[in-house]
């Protein structure tokens, strides 16, 4: 952890940056531009949320950032490294936990899977690391179960544990809490704060929930409708530790939420 801080502060290179990113599907008359010139930077240890009206190319943007899909123009950097495929230093938590966990494996095996074949890691190390990650999300006793034996919120915790065990510098989260009920959602938001405090990685989280973005982020990137570009980047100076009740009832919180809501509404197609 200290090592990461040192590198970040010394070089001043952003942990993740998008430069002039654009994406067009199809060609000729059928061409549909989804992303149009998206640029932003995420600094080391920052939590940044991306919000935008529904229909904005949030998922497309995330797939480009994760190296799962080539962009039509522009580039993505992790540190100084240009992203051409899924980078080793990045982990992704997908929205649909029921599909992103392998149902034929136990929870433990799911978390261990990405660590297989990693040089210098014995089977025992792997097991231990997975157990630590599961403990961090409060699932130390569920390793032998299968994902489908767990509730939705717990499944998403497994997906988060898988990402933690991977030890990424940057954690991408694609609407991670969109498919769970409100109470679970609040719990998972607090879990995000907790793992952030513990692991200190850079987090970029896509969401459509404006309260969530303000509650979680150091900065909120507001996107416009298609073709998507950055409308405004809103700094969130709410103090840590944040709390579901007290933070959300401050006037600063409401102001920020109102401001961002206004931006999103205005840019709605």
């Amino acid at each position, binding site marked *: 952890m200290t090592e990461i801080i040192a590198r970040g502060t010394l070089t001043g290179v952003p942990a993740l940056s998008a430069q002039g990113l654009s994406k067009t599907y199809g060609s000729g008359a059928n061409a549909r531009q989804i992303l149009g010139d998206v640029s932003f930077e995420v600094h080391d240890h920052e939590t940044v949320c991306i919000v935008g009206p529904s229909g904005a190319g949030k998922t497309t943007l995330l*797939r480009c950032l*994760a*190296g*799962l899909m080539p962009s039509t123009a522009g580039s993505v950097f992790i540190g100084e490294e240009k992203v051409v*495929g*899924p980078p*080793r230093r*990045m*982990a*992704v938590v*997908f929205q*649909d936990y029921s*599909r*992103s966990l*392998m*149902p*034929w*494996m136990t929870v433990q095996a799911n978390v261990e*899977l*990405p660590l*297989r*074949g990693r040089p210098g890691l014995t089977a025992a190390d792997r097991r231990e690391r997975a157990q630590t990650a599961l403990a961090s999300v409060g699932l130390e006793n569920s390793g032998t179960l*299968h994902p*489908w*034996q767990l509730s939705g919120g717990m499944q998403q915790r497994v997906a988060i544990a*898988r990402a933690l065990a*991977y030890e990424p510098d940057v954690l991408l989260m694609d609407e991670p809490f969109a498919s769970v009920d409100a109470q679970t959602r609040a719990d998972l938001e607090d879990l995000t704060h907790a793992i952030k405090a513990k692991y200190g990685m850079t987090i970029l989280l896509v969401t459509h929930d404006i309260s969530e973005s303000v509650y979680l982020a150091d900065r909120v990137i507001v996107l416009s409708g298609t073709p998507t570009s950055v409308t405004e980047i809103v700094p969130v100076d709410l103090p840590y530790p944040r709390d579901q009740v007290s933070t959300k009832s401050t006037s600063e919180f409401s102001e920020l939420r109102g401001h961002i809501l206004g931006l999103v509404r205005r840019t709605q197609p």
Partner: protein
Amino acid sequence: MRAVLGKSTALLTEIWLPILTVVAWWTLSSKSTSLYFPPLSRIISKLGEVVTTRFASDILPSLQNLAAGLCISVILGVICGLALGLLPPLYTAFQPLLEFMRAIPGVALLPVALFMFGIGSDMKVAIIVFGAFWPVLMNTIDGIRGIDILVKDVSRSYNIRRRDHLTRIVLPAAAPQIIAGIRISVSLGVILIVASEYVASTEGIGYIELQSARQYYMDVMWAALLLLGVLGYLLNVLFRVVEHRLLRWHRGLRGTDQGGTK
């Protein structure tokens, strides 16, 4: 108490009709003098005779050829299916040819197989492979092509190594389809082993059946038919047990096991 009662009624509803059928057949045929429909008691005793005296000479060869043919079909089908399923351009190139080859009913190749392999085990195994290979192949391809894009995204974004991707993601994800294909292959295999034993053969359960029918030993013929039925049923049950074990996660995922395909 109530659960026990419920269970025994459930069992009773399942088995009353099969029992009634056997009893009815037994009593109705007991005094039968018809050439074609001998008493069930005689068929059963012939069945015992066939099983004890002709096990090594006929039943074993049938089972051996069937097992060999099915093993080759499954191994070949899964390997080729992996290649075609993972390489879409290869699949599009081969699809029309495969559709044609698979549309040929295995039995139609018996005359051709006689040209190629003559009479003997090779011919029978070849016929089984030709018929039973396709369901495994096609289902493996379908299974792999149907893998959720999100599963592929997970595998890629976590840089899962090729070997693990194949053995821990692709094969298990396609397993329900592959196993469904193998199941079709097993029943096709039984059909084809019997068919190949009808044609220019001197051993096998199918051979016993056809020979006794030609010589009007009706009791032996019915016994052989019954034996084939029991064999087919047992294979099916055995297969269901294996499937049940292997695909526990799949049932868990879907909640309850319903069966049937859309």
